[in-house]
């Protein structure tokens, strides 16, 4: 007789309780973001009134800096943590709403250019990171996670790949820490390099979207340069995100062929499961805006709502970045990530320069 063992199911938390649990953290995101907005307005005015030479620092950087200061000094208390983690939700909602600022023709044209550049970036990034991981003697699955993280879209891609290739939690946290630390560095280095090279908004936005790994950091790196660059960075990054399913599927098939991961059954279902749904939301809003579903005032309202969502995201980027925690993860994955990122950044800059000459931006 077969003995059936019924495993106890974890009782899901009540939706109302879950909702209440995120409120303190969301309020903290809003407070940090709004403080950044106030500082942008008031510091500039104060410096001008006192005849000081002070660079105009955007709310994006203020929000990130305040978040970093809290996270790396007093830390984020437990009560705020679930709410702070919602920054990904605000990021994705913000990207969907940003679709209202793109006409479908622009999306297809710029998305087409981005897609060609993204394909080249992914191929080079995966090949280079794999070689680098081997040269540094990293575990093969950690190398795969770092390659996916730097080629496609940072943390989401690493988490999606971890499940598909059955990598250890330890490998996954090494790769996530390296990608997050490098993302934080890119917030400060990319705008400086962009200004030093006198890149146009268009070229810089494409570059940030292609080279910065995590979607939140790519959006922030773009917005730190200019509003127009921020828009382009989001478009290029969204195109990159759309490739996540294909890359994770390729890795899953590779590790399954070596007998170290489960075989993928229904490939179409696998692709749909991994496909970032906010890309579809972004396209839908863009189509609606193109066919005048919204009036001019409504489009402005949608764009402003998207800015508020991004404001919470930028606060979250600072609040979840803890350098002490990242340092604990070890130097080798970080070194591989850093060398790889520099090479990918130089390569994508050359790609963007080439595309700029070809398409005149």
């Amino acid at each position, binding site marked *: 007789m*077969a*003995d059936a063992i019924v495993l106890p199911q974890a009782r899901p938390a009540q939706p109302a309780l879950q909702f209440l649990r995120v409120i303190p953290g969301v309020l903290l995101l809003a407070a940090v973001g709004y403080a950044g907005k106030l500082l942008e307005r008031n510091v500039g005015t104060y410096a001008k009134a006192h005849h000081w030479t002070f660079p105009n620092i955007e709310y994006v950087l203020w929000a990130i800096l305040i978040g970093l200061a809290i996270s790396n000094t007093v830390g984020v208390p437990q009560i705020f943590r679930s709410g702070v983690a919602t920054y990904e*939700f*605000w990021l994705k*909602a913000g990207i969907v709403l940003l679709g209202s600022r793109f006409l479908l023709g622009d999306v297809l044209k710029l998305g087409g250019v981005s897609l060609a550049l993204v394909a080249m970036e992914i191929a080079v990034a995966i090949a280079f990171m794999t070689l680098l991981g081997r040269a540094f003697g990293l575990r093969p699955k950690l190398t795969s996670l770092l390659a996916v993280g730097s080629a496609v879209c940072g943390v989401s891609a690493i988490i999606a790949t971890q499940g598909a290739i059955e990598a250890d939690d330890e490998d996954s946290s090494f790769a996530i820490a390296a990608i997050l630390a490098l993302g934080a560095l890119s917030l400060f280095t990319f705008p400086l390099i962009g200004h030093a090279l006198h890149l146009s908004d268009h070229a810089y936005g494409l570059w940030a979207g292609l080279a910065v790994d995590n979607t939140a950091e790519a959006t922030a790196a773009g917005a730190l340069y200019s509003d127009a660059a921020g828009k382009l960075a989001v478009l290029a990054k969204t195109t990159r995100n759309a490739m996540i399913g294909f890359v994770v599927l390729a890795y899953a098939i590779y590790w399954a062929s070596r007998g170290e991961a489960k075989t993928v059954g229904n490939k179409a279902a696998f692709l749909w499961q991994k496909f970032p749904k*906010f890309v579809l939301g972004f396209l839908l809003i863009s189509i609606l805006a193109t066919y005048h*579903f919204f009036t001019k*005032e*409504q489009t402005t309202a949608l764009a402003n709502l998207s800015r508020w969502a991004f404001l919470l995201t930028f606060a979250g980027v600072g609040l979840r970045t803890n350098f002490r925690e990242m340092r604990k993860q070890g130097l080798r994955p970080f070194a591989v990530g850093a060398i790889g990122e520099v090479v990918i950044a130089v390569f994508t800059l050359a790609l963007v320069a080439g595309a700029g000459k070809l398409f005149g931006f």
Partner: protein
Amino acid sequence: MSINKVSLSSRKSWNLSLDSWAVVAALLAALLIRAGVFTRVPW
């Protein structure tokens, strides 16, 4: 010989991913603005 079988409840989960919730929230906000519930969003 007895065979131990692990049977899990195969109840379909209708929980949406965070990604999908973000899309739903953004589309709902867009519809509310389109319907004139919110006429302007200041920045």
